């Protein structure tokens, strides 16, 4: 059963990847601290896995 239309899958996957990578960059350059980075990376991975699984 597919819940997500395939045309929405790629943009959502892209947003998930961008959240994970950009939070890493922001942490590297001391814009956000480690706790905030963990939360944003977790959100990014959830979006990424949902885009693949749904």
């Amino acid at each position: 059963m597919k819940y997500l239309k395939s045309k929405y899958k790629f943009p959502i996957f892209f947003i998930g990847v961008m959240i994970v990578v950009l939070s890493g960059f922001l942490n590297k350059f001391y814009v956000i601290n480690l706790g905030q980075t963990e939360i944003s990376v977790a959100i990014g991975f959830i979006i990424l896995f949902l885009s693949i699984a749904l």
Partner: protein
Amino acid sequence: MNVNDFKNKYIPSEFLEFNPRLYAFIIMLIVGLSAFLIFPVKEISGYIDPFYSPTIFILPFVGLYRLTCYAYRKDYNRHIFKHPIGCDLKNRLDSMKRTYTGETSGLFKIENLHRYFLYVSILIVPFFYYDFYTSLFINNIFVFRLGSVLLLVNAIFITLYVLSCHSLRSLIGGRKDCYSCMSYGAGIKNLYDKQSWLNKHHEQLAWISLVFIIFVDLYLRGLTAGMPLDITFLKL
């Protein structure tokens, strides 16, 4: 030469039309590669990250090998360029309006160099086994850990991916017309048949090896961050 001639000659039509998937793919590629350069993994308790294995200078060759791979070509032609959508499809949706030139136009000509990237990749494969071997010893003491198992499985997947390559199939015997006319023809035919069986799984092996090498990289990044992920099976 005016601008239109230059466009027609060097830039394939797929790159010129509005394609958000292509832009997203290029952005992910640039951001991902720059992340690898900004966040390198140092050697941790004998493990060497497969991405930084011999040197970072080999990455372009491995990247080009995967980019020109026949399995990935099918994927990006179908899912990113949507051109052609399916080889056996009579009604190719919008692709009927576009002239499909394959690997004969402009930038796509680089796909013909897959064979040479294969030669470089064959030279790189032994380094993955060397990394597995060095991970077995810490200060001359033999230790067998979960990370070593992952490095070995990764090396095996990459070996199978390289050995199932279409270019290697051509190199072994695909370019020959007559096996009985040549010396050792039966042996070459046997080898060719076995490689052809492996070649059928090239697409799966390409994706499995790519996902697994990223998994091993994340595992070693986890170890570097201090997560208790490693298990020691044997220590002598």
